[in-house]
């Protein structure tokens, strides 16, 4: 088991005015698994992702990656941890406008000792798979949203992390760019055997993953595995669950 989280709680506010966002969540993620987290707005999915990815700290509970509990790690160890094991993709890309596409992608490699040739080869492979090699010299301001998100994905994959955390990666994209990106993610997930944990509210996006975890009011409501289903069947299954959850779809007569 690659990632194992036990009884995670997270609350905000002061002593007198507390809001509990996560009310004791247990989650497991296997190596090479692609898992989506879904839920209505305010169900705590982004908070969960932030906590699992070490961006935010938990109020209580433990998170193990490869058997190491990082909730107790100090800044330096935590930084090493992020450097080697984690990759991130955000809804708003988080690219540096002052660096070119290639430089943005190579950024994670710059803080580890890797020969120029090796780094070059890594870039060629990842950028090639994501189809953004010819954009290398452009700047974030000059490329489309879909391209920017693929750049961001390339940056997440380049150092071959164990897990990639994606927060609504398709949220700002049109459906064509979105499915293009998801196909690439699926592909990389298979070829590199990198685990992906993705937060999304889009059933289409979720249907690309192996397993969907539904959150409701800070707790795991249910989860759904694709198994041998076709993507279409899986998609309608997700929609049904979402309807039961009372989240988004409210069928009108």
């Amino acid at each position: 088991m690659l990632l194992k989280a036990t009884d995670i709680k997270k609350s905000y506010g002061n002593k007198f005015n507390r809001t509990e966002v996560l009310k004791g969540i247990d989650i497991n993620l296997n190596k090479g698994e692609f898992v989506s987290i879904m839920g209505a707005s305010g169900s705590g999915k982004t908070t969960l992702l932030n906590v699992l990815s070490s961006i935010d700290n938990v109020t209580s509970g433990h998170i193990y990656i490869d058997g190491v509990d990082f909730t107790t790690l100090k800044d330096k160890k935590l930084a090493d941890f992020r450097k080697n094991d984690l990759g991130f993709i955000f809804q708003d890309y988080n690219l540096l406008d002052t660096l070119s596409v290639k430089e943005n992608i190579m950024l994670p490699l710059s803080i580890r000792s890797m020969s120029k040739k090796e780094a070059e080869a890594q870039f060629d492979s990842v950028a090639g798979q994501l189809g953004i090699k010819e954009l290398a010299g452009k700047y974030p301001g000059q490329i489309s949203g879909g391209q920017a998100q693929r750049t961001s994905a390339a940056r997440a994959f380049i150092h071959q992390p164990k897990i990639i955390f994606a927060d609504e990666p398709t949220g700002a994209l049109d459906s064509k760019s979105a499915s293009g990106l998801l196909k690439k993610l699926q592909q990389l997930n298979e070829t590199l055997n990198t685990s992906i944990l993705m937060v999304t509210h889009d059933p289409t996006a979720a249907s690309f993953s192996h397993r969907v975890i539904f959150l409701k009011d800070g707790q795991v409501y249910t989860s759904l595995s694709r198994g041998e289903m076709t993507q279409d069947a899986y998609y309608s299954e997700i929609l049904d669950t979402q309807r039961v959850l009372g989240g988004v779809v409210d069928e009108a007569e």
Partner: protein
Amino acid sequence: MKLNNLVIKNFLRNLKNYALYIFALVFSVALFFSLLTLTLDETAMEEIAGSTPMTALFSVGSVTVVIIIILFVMFANMIFIKRRHKELALFQLIGMNRNKIFRILLLENFLIYFGSLIGGIVLGFFISRLLLMLLLKIMRVDMMVEMNFSLTAVVITAAVFVFIFIVLMIQNYVFLRRSSLIKMLKLNKTSESTGKPLGKMTIVLGIAGIAMIALGYYMSQTMFERAMENPIMLPVYMVGILFLTIAGTYITFKYSVAFILNMIRKSKNGHVNVNDVLSVTSVMFKMRSNAFLLTAIAVITAISITAMSLSYITYYSTDKMLDSTTPYDYTVENSEDLDFYEKLLSDNDYEIDRIEKSFMHYSIVRTDENTDLPEGEETGMDSNEIGIVVASDKEFEGFDVAENETKATGTLAILDILVSFEEGNPVTFTNGADFDRTVEVTDTTSDGILPSNLSFGLPVLIIDDAVYQELADNQPEENEEFEMPSELYAFNIVGGDNDEVLEMMDKEEHPSFSSKLLDYKEMTQMSGMMAFIVGFLGFAFLLTSGCILYFKQIDECEEEKGSYKVLRKLGFSEGEILKGLALKMIISFGIPLVIGLLHSLFAVKSGWFIFGIEMWTPTLIVMGVYTVLYSIFALMSLGYYRKIVRKSI
């Protein structure tokens, strides 16, 4: 690709954003360095500042500049590190630890800092020559400008800026320590306290703030009059006024502005237009959270304008002051000395214009009609009488005064505390016994007819010869402890005085004299030096407070980027949005400026007469120049906004 390469590359591309910061830094260094070079240049100092108080003035100036620079740079650093949180968060996400990020900041700041330091020193060296020329011109000293590149100045400047650099690094370190990753990722989404409804307290405090300032102003206008009654109270009044105006300014920014803008908003009854969205509603909340900063800026503005106005008043009044206190080129003690110099000068082909006049001291008395004269008890004098010099219009040319009238000469505003002569008021002469004679003041002039050592610094009254004789006939008994002077021996050089004449006369074995030229030189040097240093500091204040407001606007602009996008999408043109933003600039820059100007106006009004003769012209010139320079920063901010608005869609 190594990390350092990336950092340097990133930094170089970011340089445009830093442009003003770097400019301000370079300028700060240049200002400090040039002031230091001036102070350390021995030949220049010998010429302009013979005495220690003047060099001390320079030292005080340098220290003040350092303090301004430290505060300013710390503020600018905070804004810039906040603007870069996105980058810093990303660096952390890809696995850099805080120490490494700190090292990156260190490297960047090092580049910025020491680049600016070198640039500033080079610029400062040229500026110092310019400054010296300016200073000499202000002091009206003729001297060849020659400056040496002072290594000591470089070392001191470097030391000061290394110190500031260390302070900044501590600041950055604390910032990094305190901020967690999640906060940095979200920093751009949290805005300053907006949307809080304005409660009743706001209204009460809003009115209180304005009332406090008004009370402070009122007290400042009556301060000296009241202090005359009870001198011990003067410091109490001063502290009270300072407290009222400064606290009032803070409350005004915190509550009154929001309160007034909210009234404007309410009066629109929901029909807000684009101008309101961009200016009134935005500023309303921003002012509140920036109250402290704005108060500091308004107070600093007020202090620097007041100081500049007062020193400029002094400098501006020098000529008139001298005409009032030292009307003749040379004054000597008796007619033998006069003969001596006449001979000496005519031997050297200089013609002189002898002036020998007589006058007398006479007492004037306080009467019910003439209340200008202070009451005896207040001034500490035994009686209601005050001795004053009177002269006949026959004796002094150019005057023709009717009987029962008098002309007051050498009236300076500062003397009004002791005795003031206003046109239309009566003056009553008395010999202390049964004789008295009343005349009416018909004219006053600041020009004097007697040097101040003969008139005891008081105005001289010119009366009709007949009245003069009448007074002379009724002289009081000679019971003074010492003889009052009644003769003036002076002369003017025909064709004007010059240094050559002064040099010829100024010998040890010659009889003593007082020279207008010498007095003039001393006065212009002192007041010129003062005006120079104060102007210099005022300029530093202006530069830093302008930059701070500009940075603040850049910050707000980045925050409000989204709104411009929405407005553009709603169909508002660039011009319409910019109009609203221009209004915002006027409010954001205008309110601190107007408050600062008002503060200084009242401050100047309350005490200007101690410094000179003219108040309005020099004060308005200083205020005008300050406003113009200050507006440049508002225009720069608007330019920045325009760039962002244009790019927003």
